[in-house]
């Protein structure tokens, strides 16, 4: 630490504050950080206060303006947890409902798919330029997926136009039945391994797995294929960060 003689006055104040609060060991850069924070905060407050005082057509900025500025900023930048009585109140409400019963034999117990992070967070761009590939799962028709699915229904999705859940569900593939959809471009999906850590789903879409396997091992992949795949294609509410531009460049 620089000797007190050469340290600017503000930094000395910071050092004194730390000492008063009983903090003896700290990185020297902490002082700089605190100074930066102080300058930024005070400047923001004073600027806000100036705005308020001109709005009130006062000639000078006075304490009320500052107080108002602080109050407005406090709710924005320095949120604090809710007050105790509020917490007690919501706790009371929440704790009144009885615990929900647990359904047996349901495989991995996860929330509804829109609350999970298991949906694919990208969609593929169609390679065919002339086909309008607005919504829906962009697929390359007639791409032989071979081993992916043994059901002959797959190739029926010949038309690359919008394939939403509704149309696809007609071809149930999976043993668990309800949530499987058939997707053609699974082979594409295999190759396009996106950046997110989550999308195992696109790669395991057309899996036929022994039902007994599901029960015993609760392997995620079986039940979470989810029509989420298709339902979230165009919507993909959570996946805003997928970069379509990147695919455009492909």
């Amino acid at each position, binding site marked *: 630490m620089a000797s007190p003689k050469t340290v600017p006055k503000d930094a000395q104040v910071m050092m004194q504050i730390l000492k*008063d609060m009983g903090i003896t060991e700290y990185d020297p850069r902490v002082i700089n950080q605190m100074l930066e924070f102080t300058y930024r905060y005070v400047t923001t407050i004073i600027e806000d206060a100036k705005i308020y005082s001109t709005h009130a057509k006062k000639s000078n900025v006075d304490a009320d303006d500052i107080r108002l500025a602080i109050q407005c900023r406090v709710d924005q930048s320095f949120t604090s947890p809710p007050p105790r009585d509020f917490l007690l109140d919501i706790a009371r409400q929440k704790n009144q409902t009885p615990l929900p019963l647990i359904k047996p034999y349901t495989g991995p117990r996860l929330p509804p798919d829109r609350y999970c992070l298991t949906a694919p967070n990208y969609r593929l761009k169609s390679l065919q330029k002339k086909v309008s590939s607005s919504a829906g799962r962009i697929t390359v028709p007639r791409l032989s997926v071979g081993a992916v699915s043994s059901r002959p229904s797959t190739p029926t999705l010949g038309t690359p136009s919008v394939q939403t859940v509704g149309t696809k569900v007609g071809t149930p593939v999976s043993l668990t039945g309800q949530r499987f959809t058939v997707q053609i471009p699974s082979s594409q999906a295999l190759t396009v391994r996106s950046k997110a850590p989550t999308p195992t789903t696109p790669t395991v879409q057309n899996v036929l797995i022994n039902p007994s396997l599901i029960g015993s091992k609760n392997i995620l992949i079986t039940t979470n294929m989810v029509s989420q795949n298709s339902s979230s294609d165009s919507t993909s509410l959570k996946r805003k960060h997928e970069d379509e531009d990147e695919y455009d460049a492909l």
Partner: protein
Amino acid sequence: MTPLLSAPGEKMAAVQDAPMELDSEKETKPEILSDGTSNLSGNTASGTLSSPPLTAGGAPKQEDQQTLIAVLQFLRRNKLTESVDILRREACLEDQEDSQTLDGSGGGKGDGDGGDANSLLSRVSIASAAAPQSTLTPIPVKNDQPDVSVVLSAYSQQGDPSLYQVYYTGLKNFIESVLDCHRAELSQLFYPLFVHMYLELVYNNHETKAKAFFEKFSGDQECYYQDDLQILCGLTKKEHLKGNEALLDFRTSRFVLRISRDSYQLLKRHLQERHNNQIWNIIQEHLYIDIFDGMPRSKSQIDSMSGSFAGETRREVNKAKVFYGLLKEPEIEVPLDDEDDEAENEEGKPKKKKTKKDSMGSKSKKQDPNAPQQNRIPLPELKDSDKLDKIMYMKESTKRIRLGPENLPSICFYSFLNAYQGLTAVDFTDDSSLLAGGFADSTVRVWSATPKKLRKVKSAAELNLIDKESDDVLERIMDEKTASESKNLYGHSGPVYGVSFSPDRNYLLSSSEDGTVRLWSLQTFTCLVGYKGHNYPVWDTHFSPFGYYFVSGGHDRVARLWATDHYQPLRIFAGHLADVTCTRFHPNSNYVVTGSTDRTIRLWDVLNGNCVRFFTGHKGPIHSLAFSPNGKFLASGSTDGRVLLWDIGHGLMIGELKGHTDTIYALKFSRDGEILASGSMDNTVRLWDSMKAFDDMETDDFTAATGHIPLPDNSQELLLGMYHSKSTPVTHLHFTRRNLLLAAGAYNSQ
């Protein structure tokens, strides 16, 4: 006057006195009140007020007007119609309409303006650890509430500020003159009185006087309050109080003191002899004195149990029945010869085959009276894989080493190298095969602690190709190409402060500073769910011993109970005054224990969210908790370096283990509960003889009546071993199924 308004619907600490004299009130009260309050003696402290009567007829000042309205409302609420009429007549008040004009500020005590409409009264009535009083709803419906709170805040000043020093010194002299045996108990008064008087001075804008008061008397306080005093030192203005939730709660909740009856009589007699006894007012308003019949406690006894933010615990808070017993294990037959003949049965119907009966389950068919019902809370059913796990567990437990004072466990230390002080959380699976670390750079890393590597499940295309009927299909679904010693899990956006494996080793939970708890799959090593609920750092998370439920606690001062298939919490455990730093499930999954920065430990019932136990005694934030395997006892460690042992059934502290010199972050009981291992930041692991510590204590209803039992100072005898690491603080401890102790920490090179 203040005690009158401060305790609607709240019991005072058995204080029923003859009306007292109070003078020098700032506001004026009509003398009629003394008649009215005698009717209230059942409900409130009987401090009645006599003060110079209202100047006859003349319109009172605005403040007085407010006060009168407030008093009127209070009387009306308590259905004292006669008093209301008399008061109205005497004070020449027209009608209720006045209250509308007095807009007041409506805020709580903490701030005079705006804020939410939660009134002071509601805060004051929600004072203790118990559920809030039902007389006042937290969100006031009537608009007379704001007035009352304004008045209250005006009244919070007990007299002339410059005399506070005199009062305090007077009390000090008195207590010093008292007999030794009472002095220790009465000295408990110093700290709460000091803080409340200081806060009142600050709140009423007597800054210089507050500072002088602080300087003069802060040095006298107990050493374990120094941290709080340091925070108080920086609070010199009313505005500073506004944002500080903890202090606001302190101001409105009641500091609990436990004093023996004799000492209490002494104090009362002294304070009532004097006429200007502001101290008595403050005591009545802000303190709750839990009187017990018995010997006055010694200084060391008091010291061991005090230190929490809001005083000690009232005895009645710890009276609820707690089912601390373990759930009955389902009977599973262990085959004598491995692999084949794994026949499992449900409870109570043993099949006669060439198998050995499961000795883990309870022999008797009778229900343990202290154990909860099997279906008290819904628990997931046992799957085949779980039954296989149980069989493995039982096989391992037959090979378990019996530990004891003569037979100490070996300790295997896992040092995290190159972690650059970024290791913030560690967990082991129950069978010690996997190890997870949470880091400050927001990653979670899972290692395999056995020679077997970690593999991901194959992709869909490949899974289709495997032979599904083969016996080793569970091996075939794993992708050998992805085998590695460790796997990184990315997803959090802040340091990961808590990790927890699920009992079936399929899931991993991690909680982070970004306010979310993430569920990761250990088969695909990807993130499955992000549970958002805390909007503030989540300091700890823990899976239930049966899976499916997990609990998390964070900066927002609540702990939440979640189930993996609900995106919102099922239960919210609110009551702590500061952050919840440590959360653990009881072995029977019916209770959750939380330790907090307010230096208290609370035990919550999962079924209805009630706080059933409240333990004070630590002098610093609590960072580690451990249940004994039989579910009866709890051990807790905090930054003060002490490990405290608690009897859950009776709600008492039964042991204190001193020795560590720094924060204790790891506590674990051995598999049969004979040894307690503690690991701390002072780079040591200590082993304590918990069997002896629990046996020595006789706790029955008689000794537990006073709320405390004398603790022997036997830390030295109970210490079985102390093991130093070179410079690696111990972050986590884990006993393997065969009672080998594993420890984990990050090597700290400086």
